[in-house]
């Protein structure tokens, strides 16, 4: 299980952040996802065999937000 942490500074609203969280959590290979609107922190625990970080970044970007590695 690998852990990764992103910063997203362009969330529009609290609901938008929880949507990203839900989508990440549903992604194949993701074990746990936590997205915090107040700090812009995105934590993901995932299985490297099933999904890579580029895919995670794409998932966030597709929702309209810019993930940055801390």
């Amino acid at each position, binding site marked *: 299980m690998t852990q990764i942490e992103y910063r997203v500074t362009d969330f529009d609203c609290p609901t938008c952040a929880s949507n990203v969280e839900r989508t990440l959590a549903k992604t194949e290979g993701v074990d746990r996802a936590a997205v*915090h609107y107040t700090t812009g922190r995105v934590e993901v625990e995932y299985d490297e065999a099933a999904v890579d970080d580029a895919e995670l970044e794409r998932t966030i970007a597709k929702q309209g937000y810019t993930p940055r590695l801390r």
Partner: protein
Amino acid sequence: MDLRRQFQKHRKPAVVVASGLLFAVGWVAGYGSGLETASATLMVLAALVGGYDVARKAYYTLRSGTVGINTLVTLAAIGAIAIGEYWEAAAVVFLFALGTYLEARTMSKTRSALTELLEMTPDTALVRRDGDGGEASRASKSRAGSPRDYVEVPARDVEPGETVLVKPGAKVPVDGDVVGGESAIDQAPVTGESAPVYKRAGDEVYAGTVNQEGALEVVATGTGRDTTLERIIRRVEEAQEATAPTETIIERFATYYTPAIVALAVGAYAVTGNAVLALTLLVIGCPGALVIGPPVSIVSAIGSAARSGVLLKGGEHLETAGKIDLVAFDKTGTLTSGESTVANVTGFGVDDETVLRHAAIAEKRSEHHLADAILEAASGPSGDSAPVADGGAVLERSTEATGLEPDGPAIPDPDDFAVAAGKGVLAGHDGRRIVVGNRTLLDERGIDVPDRVERHVRDREEAGETAVYVALEDEVVGVVSIRDELRPAAAGVVAALENAGVRTVMLTGDNERTARSVAASVGIDDYRAGLLPEEKQRAIESFRDDGHVVSMVGDGINDAPSLATADVGVAMGAAGTDTAIETADVALMADDLERIPDAVGLSKATRRNVAENVAVAVATVGLLLAGVFGGYVHMASGMLIHIASVLLVILNGMRLLRY
């Protein structure tokens, strides 16, 4: 390629500007020149440009099974175009894009208190790496500040135990212990202290602080993500992410509000057939200000506190701290500096020197803080009186300072030694029995205390000192009086709290007379003396049972049980103790009592701020609903009021950043 990246970077403002321009030109075309078709085309274009991202987000939101504001705005815009209200569609989309852009901008300002801290740590460090394995002997001869032995590496690659050189004017890259050099350090980024702190061999320095004067050699103890600053940042973020009770209530409300408004919109259309009314309801269907207001207030407050060296565990504790009406202080190390010094030695039948010397022999192996004071006094003039801050000269006498051996007479080891916990110590030396301790210990051992000794002890205790009896061969030969200076700020802080209507109490394990004297000089009427740690905890419980919201201020280690029992536990001087940073409800990074009334004030201001934001949000929702049904508010004006209210609560919350 480069152009594309530039566009990606500024995509959001570019979209807002493009949509706005199309809208403006379309408006002029329509109302100024009467070119109806051209105007309508431009308006639809404006809606498409501004709405593309919104619609995309709406799509993903729907796919994740929820209805968010993007969904509502998209539906409203499509609906408006469908019924020919091109102007409304363009206005709603443009205003929404502008609003969310500004919202994201201001929100990231709110988070900036933290990003500023993140940028405090330097990226690289100068580390001593000779690479020949035998560096120890050679290195010890090299003087601090000879950069040829050092290589520059990324700060996070420094291993604990390695020696780092911190040049004057540079930032400290790691947590560590000073082994060479002396300098003044600006610790504000970590502890919030405004005055520089003087550091020399044996002192701890923190990553992210700024070396102001001389070069320092530092042995790393914590590097990379394992530094005090990183722990502070993580702690602050966790605090900002934790939801306060108010937020939980509001979030529950919000989950029902949006579907309810959608249902209302459908119902209103079914009953009245008024499409504009129904679409307007969709536009205002997201309780934006309500869900954003409280978190913004709390995040700003926690960030603002962190910058002044106060760590708050979360919004919940912030809300509780605003209700505190009783503050209990520990005495030693909290109201006093905790640095004990021997104030007086008096011999009875022997000379003062003999009293101090025997006390020191007996206490040599003790770890009590009073023992340190006695040993320091007995070993004569120590290095502590060395001159402070003298800039450039520091380089010259660095390495010798590491082998610190006080130059007073050596204290021999006791032949045997035993601790009577909370009472004193027993030791043997040269075949003579030494007892050093309080009255209880002497009474237990059946040692008589002559009247004149007792009078002397009473005088010292009434002056706020702690008197320790010294007995040789079961006969009292003298008294060592130890003084622990009051913190200069203590009296002012007590007065500030009392003025704010907060009751103050002092809890101490020290004796009645010393306690009374200290309490009187800081202005606390209510004190409890002679308490064991669990009795302090019981005192806190009883205050809570009396209906008080209680804060306990202590050192975070010895007072841990009392801090945990209090509604708000405040740990002092947390910079050096990881557990205090992790566990205390409120951690004061420096030993700065004055932050306590500040923190209480900030908590009160935050509670007020949250209430204001909720009031603004509720008033906005009421006003909008009344306006929509009264026919005064249409799609564009509804959106305008909506985003205005969101920006208003964010700006209001951000006022706390400057508290």
